[in-house]
C-alpha cells in the first residue's frame, strides 16, 4: 500500500491530444530502473485572451509495473488551467476509476472534489493550505521561480516546506524542499543544463529538473527500492529548446567580405 501511495504521488503529470496541431506535445518516457514502463505526454496550449495569456494543460500518463502481487497498470488523463490551480483528472489504476478535481475561487480558496467508489466528496480549503497543484510541476515557466523562492528561504536556517495538492489522489502532500543547483542531464545525444529540486513528502523524495526556460526535463523518485524516472524524449526537447550550434552550423553561410 505504501508503495502504491508513493507511486501515485509521483504521477503528477498527464496527457492527451488537442486539435490545435501547432501546439507542441512533449513526450516523457517512464522507466523503472533500466526498463521502460510507460509514457506521459504533455501539451500546454497558450491562448492570448483580452485578459491575459491562458495556459491550458492536457496530459495523458500510462504505465505498467510489476509488483509481487501482479502487474499494476495505471492510466491518467488531466486537463488543467495552469496558474489558476483548476484541474480535472480521470484515473484508472488496475481497473478502479476515480476523478480528482480542483477549482479555485477568485480569493484563492480551493474546492477539492473526489469521485470514487460511486460517491462524490467535496471540501473547501483556504488558499494557504496549498502552495501548488501537482499539475503545476509541468509548468516550469510559472513554477520554477516559485520553487527557487521557496528553496531560498533555507538560507536563513529554516526548512522550506512545500504543500502540494496531488492530482492523483486529492491528497495534500507536505514535505521539505531542497535546491540541488544546476546540473547536466543527458537527453539523447544532447546535454541539457537543468536546475534541480528535491521535494520529500512523507519521506518519499521526488526530484525535479527544469531548464532555465522552465521546461521540465525529467523527474525521479525512489519507489520500493527501485528508481522510477521520467525523462523527456530527445524529439520533444528539440522542438522546445533552441537548436544546438552543431545542428544549425550547416545552414550558416559565411558572409562575404
Amino acid at each position, binding site marked *: *500500500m505504501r508503495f*502504491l*501511495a508513493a507511486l*501515485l504521488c509521483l504521477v503528477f503529470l498527464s496527457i*492527451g491530444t*488537442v*486539435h*490545435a*496541431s501547432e501546439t507542441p506535445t512533449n513526450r516523457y518516457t517512464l522507466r523503472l530502473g533500466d526498463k521502460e514502463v510507460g509514457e506521459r505526454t504533455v501539451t500546454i496550449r497558450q*491562448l*492570448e*485572451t*483580452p*485578459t491575459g495569456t*491562458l495556459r*491550458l494543460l*492536457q496530459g*495523458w500518463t500510462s504505465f505498467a509495473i510489476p509488483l509481487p502481487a501482479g502487474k499494476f497498470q495505471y*492510466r*491518467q*488523463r488531466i*486537463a488543467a*488551467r495552469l496558474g489558476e490551480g483548476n484541474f*480535472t483528472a*480521470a*484515473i*484508472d*489504476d488496475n*481497473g*478502479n*476509476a*476515480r*476523478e*480528482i*478535481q480542483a*477549482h479555485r475561487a477568485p480569493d484563492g480558496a480551493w474546492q*477539492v*472534489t*473526489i*469521485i*470514487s*467508489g*460511486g*460517491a*462524490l*466528496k*467535496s*471540501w*473547501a*480549503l*483556504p488558499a494557504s*493550505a496549498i502552495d501548488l497543484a501537482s499539475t503545476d510541476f509541468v509548468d516550469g515557466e510559472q513554477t520554477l521561480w516559485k520553487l527557487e523562492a521557496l528553496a531560498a528561504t533555507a538560507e536563513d536556517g529554516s526548512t522550506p516546506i512545500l504543500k502540494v495538492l*496531488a492530482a*492523483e*489522489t*486529492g*491528497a*495534500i*502532500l507536505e514535505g521539505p524542499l531542497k535546491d540541488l543547483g544546476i546540473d547536466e542531464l543527458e537527453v539523447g545525444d544532447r546535454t541539457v543544463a537543468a536546475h534541480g529540486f528535491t521535494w520529500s513528502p*512523507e519521506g518519499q523524495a521526488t526530484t525535479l529538473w527544469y531548464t532555465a526556460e522552465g521546461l521540465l526535463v525529467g523527474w525521479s523518485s525512489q519507489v520500493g527500492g527501485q528508481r522510477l524516472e521520467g525523462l523527456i524524449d530527445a524529439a520533444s526537447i528539440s522542438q522546445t529548446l533552441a537548436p544546438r550550434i552543431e545542428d544549425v552550423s550547416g545552414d550558416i553561410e559565411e558572409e562575404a567580405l
Partner: protein
Amino acid sequence: MLTSRDALLMPLAATLLACKTSTDDTAIVPTEGFSHQPVSTCESPLDAVAYEERGAALGLLGGPDPDGEHQQGGAIAVLDIDGDQDLDILTSFRFQNTVIHRWNGESFDTEMLDAPYEPWNMSLGDVNNDGMLDVLVSGMREPMVLLGNGTDFDGMSLPDFPIPDPNTSIAQSFGVIDLDLDGALDVYAVVNTGGAAPTDEDMADFMMWGDGTGSFEVDTSLPSTTARRGFDAVITEWRGQQALYLVNDMGAEFGGDVLMVADGRDIIDVTDEAGTAVAHSGMGGDIADWNEDGRADIYITTSITGHVLWSSQDDDTYFDEATSVGALGIAKENGMGWGAAFVDYDNDGDQDIIDAQGDQWGQNDPDSFRFDQPIWLLEQTEDDIFEEVGGPLGLATTGSYRSALAQDFNNDGVPDLLVSDVLAPPHLYLSKGCTKNGWLQVVAPINSRVEIDVDGKTKVDWSTTHSGYAATHEPIVHFGLGEHEIVDALRVTDPYGNSWEYEHPFQGRRRVIVGSPAGFWD
C-alpha cells in the same frame, strides 16, 4: 461532506480510495476520445428555476434602427471567440456592422467589427477545418465567412452567388452541413426573393460545396421544389441519415416546406414520404426528440397560423401535434412567431420550448402590424402537453422579439435564455442558481447524434449549431436528468458513422467532450 479538517487526512484516505476495488464506480475512466470538465456541485439548490433579465445591465447592445424593420435585425451567435472558456455573443442589427460582446468575467465588452454590415442571419461551423468555429453570415448585404482565428475573426468573401438580381433576391440563411460527407462542411443557401414575383430562376436555393479550406463550389442543380420563398434551413435526421428541413415563408403562394436528404451530391426531396408538406409562413425551426421515440422532431415557428410541432411516427412520417399539445405559440391574433428552440430549462428530463414572438412590422408594407408580443416558455408537463410558465419565472415582458437560444452562460447547469429584440438590447435571462435536478452537457462534432442512458431510458439529441430563426451556438447538447445524478452510458455517432461509446456509469452535472469538436475544448 468533508470538512477542511477531514481534508488533512486525505493523503491516507485518498490512497485507500485509490486501492479500493469497486463495482459501482461513477468516476470517468480515462478513455480515448472522451474528455470531461469538473463536476459542478450544487451546494444550495433552489427549489425551482428562477430567471433574472440582465442583458442590458451586463452590456448587451441593441440596434440603432428605431423602426425595427421586420427580419433585418436580431440575429445572434453564441460561442467562445477567444478561448477563455466563457461564452461571447455576436449580434447583428440593421444600420450597423456586427458587434462582438466579449465576456470579461463581470460584463460584456463590446466592439464593432469592420464587417459585415447588417447581416440577417448567422450560422456556426468550422468550414476550413482548423479546429476553430467560423461564422457564416447571410442577408441583404454581401454574405461572407468570419473565420475564427482564436482571438477574433478574419473576414473572407464567399463565391459570387447565382442570384440574378441581388436587389430583390438574397441568401436569407445558411444551413451548415457536410451533405456529401467528404469531410468538409458544405453550406446550403436558402434564397428569399423578398417581394419579388416568384420564378424558378431567381428563387432557387443553391449549395456551396466546401473543400475544407474555406473555399466553396457553387451548385445550382437542386430540386425545383427548393425554388420557394426560403427562410430557414434546419439540420435534422431522417431515417438514420442527416437531412435538411427547409422552412419556407408564404407557402400558400410560393410552396410549402421541404425535407431533403442527399446521396452523395444528389439532393433528394423526401417531403411527400415524410408527410411534411405544410404551406404556411414559416420563419425558423429547431429539433429535439420531444416524444422520446429516438427520432428527431421539428418545431416550426410561423406567422398568424400557429406553430407546427412535427412529431415523428414509427413509419418515419411526421404528424403535427402543436394544436393538440398546446404548442401553437402565438399569443395574439396577427402575432408572429420568430425564434424558438427546444430546451429542458428545468432539467426535469422533458423538452420544453422557448418561444420568442414579435410583430410583422415592415416600413414598406402598409398591411403590416406593429404591437408588442411576449416571450413564452412552454413547459412540457407530465401529461405531455405544453403550458406557458415564463411569466412567473421572470420572463414577463413584451417586445418585438426575434431569435432565441438556450445556453449555460453562468455555468450552473440551468440553461440560460438569450432572446433578441429588433428594437432593444437582447434579453439575457440568467438563472439565479442551480437546482436539485441533474444534468449533462455533451460537446460533440457538429451534427452528431448523441445518446445517453439514464435510469433505464435512452435520451437522444443532436449537436447542431442551429437554434431556430437567426440563432446559432456551439455544438453543445444539454440533457436534463431529473432526479438522477448518474449517467449510465454515453454514445455519439457523427454524420460519417464514426462512433464513440462510453458504457460506464459516470457522474453528471458536468460537460463531457467527445471526439474533436471545433472550438476551444480540452
